[in-house]
């Protein structure tokens, strides 16, 4: 197949599309290919968007409308479904719980992960390799293996069925990844700066907190994005540890709303609940999509 010989433009940053060049001599083959390309790409985009858009639309419907046809538009914008989901189905509480746990959990993960990584990367002490190995080996173990004893340990430490407790457990299980990633990051930072800081009399903590930690910021952001997403996603740990509905996180609460028996089943509230759990993520993502994508890709490519 022939490719045309349009002169090559200077390489643009990957995340940005090349500016469309008007009248740049397309061949017939090229146009057909272009149609195919866009055809495939648009199909997948539709596959992604339609279930989500359908969910948002369904959130405005009544039970009757939901049962009649998946395509019919809601008879009215029934914001009441959202109020119903937020208060009666307690999606609001689950949402707030999730934000609390993920915020606290990420902060703890980063604080502990960075400290361990800094020490392991920058200090030669007996057992350095052992500490590093101990943390990193945790990445290879499936969490399932731990859940039975963890369930009882968390109960005896009063970490179970509590929001801060869940955050502590999240942090502990995210440490291997954070240490693995950040240790590599701290190793790449120049030593000259910390030397200078010591000469200025900063001390160990001062050098770490005031000089090195700010330098590690890009790494922390990358790890932070991974950790936030991972903790937002968690289902297994809250399912095991949070036994009271007032401590449920969003994923768990929604699943509970969808499958648990003995409740007044309200379908439209389920869609409204789903929408409530999807939209904020979408908004945050659209606002920071460059950073989020960049951070995640960097994390995965490392």
């Amino acid at each position, binding site marked *: 197949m022939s490719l045309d010989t349009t002169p090559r433009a200077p390489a643009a940053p990957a995340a940005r*599309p090349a500016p469309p060049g008007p009248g740049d001599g*397309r061949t017939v083959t090229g146009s057909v*290919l272009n149609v195919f390309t866009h055809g495939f790409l648009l199909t997948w985009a539709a596959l992604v968007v339609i279930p*989500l858009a359908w969910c948002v639309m369904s959130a405005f419907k009544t039970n009757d409308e939901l049962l009649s046809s998946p395509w019919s538009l809601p008879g009215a914008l029934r914001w009441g479904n959202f109020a119903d989901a937020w208060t009666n189905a307690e999606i609001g509480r689950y949402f707030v719980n999730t934000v609390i746990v993920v915020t606290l959990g990420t902060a703890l993960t980063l604080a502990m992960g960075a400290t361990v990584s800094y*020490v392991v990367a920058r200090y030669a*002490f007996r057992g350095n390799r052992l500490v590093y190995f101990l943390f990193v080996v945790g990445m*290879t173990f499936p969490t399932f293996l731990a859940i039975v004893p963890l369930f009882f340990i968390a109960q005896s430490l009063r970490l179970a069925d509590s929001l801060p407790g869940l955050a502590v457990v999240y942090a502990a299980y995210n440490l291997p990844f954070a240490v693995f990633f950040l240790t590599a990051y701290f190793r790449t930072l120049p030593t000259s700066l910390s030397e200078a800081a010591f000469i200025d009399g900063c001390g160990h903590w001062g050098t770490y907190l005031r000089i090195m930690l700010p330098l590690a910021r890009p790494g922390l952001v990358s790890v932070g994005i991974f950790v936030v*997403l991972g903790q937002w996603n968690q289902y297994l740990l809250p399912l095991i540890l949070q036994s009271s509905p007032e401590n449920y996180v969003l994923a768990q609460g929604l699943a509970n709303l969808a*499958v648990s028996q003995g409740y007044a089943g309200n379908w439209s509230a389920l869609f409204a609940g789903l929408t409530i759990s999807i939209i904020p993520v979408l908004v945050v993502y659209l606002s920071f999509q460059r950073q989020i994508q960049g951070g995640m890709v960097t994390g995965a490519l490392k």
Partner: protein
Amino acid sequence: MRAGSLRFVVTALAVPILLYGVLVISPYAQSFYISLTDWNGLSPERTFIGLDNYARLVRDDVFWISVWHNVIAVLVIPAVTLALGLFFATMIHVGRYRARGGGRGVRGAAVYRIVYFFPHLLSIAVVGVLFSTVYDPTGSGLLNGALGLVGIEPVNWLGSKDTAYPAMLAVIIWLSVGFYVILFTSAMSSIPADIFEAARLDGTTRWQTFWRMTLPLIWDTVQVAGIYLGIHALDMFAIVNVMSAAGGSGGPDNSTQVLGNYLYITAFQNSEFGYATAIGVALLLLTLAFAAAALRLTRRERVEF
């Protein structure tokens, strides 16, 4: 070493190591022992029964069904996700090749990248609830409603043994593909453009370019992605637990049962904690086996550029 180094090391590591030791290492370590007991998790009493739980595993049909389903997930999810990810990434990357920009992305690439990435940000359990409604077996579900438009009778996606598990695998693929599209386009755009230019001048077809140049050059990324996907595919817990029968039975009739969910049911519904941890150990072995196999299979000549 500097003065006070040791004290700093000790104070800095104390809390993280204590927490990690108590909450992560200790449960892992205890599991191996618990798997050798008949503990029911309801009383402190438990009897050491040696390898009885493992002997029971070998005879347990549901266990083998679960292993098989995990193996299917590990084979299918990475294969399909990587294939689709590479396909769409190539489309985005070289789609506009013949036009201006020398392989710098199709028109609207930024929009595709934003849209494709989005499912990756949703909680798997939330996606599971969403797709339970998408897969509604009557005509009022999204999927059956769409099939109805072209005259296809509603399919009982999650209620039939033939379709339930593939339907769940499809959901995982749905939410995974986007991230790998982004990952691979990033990897592709780090390939120097002259390489493509040279190939173009040599008259290489797109297909050849992809197989002979693009793929080998981003092979490291694909390999890491495959292992990462495989490890995640060994999980399947959230999706099965949410999308199979109420209470996450792995139904219909164990046709969607996976090790994670079987472990969960065995421990937290049947109160067989000793047996459940034996399933956990089996899951660990499967994970290690996968990692070893993947590393061996994906070893290839590195292409430097």
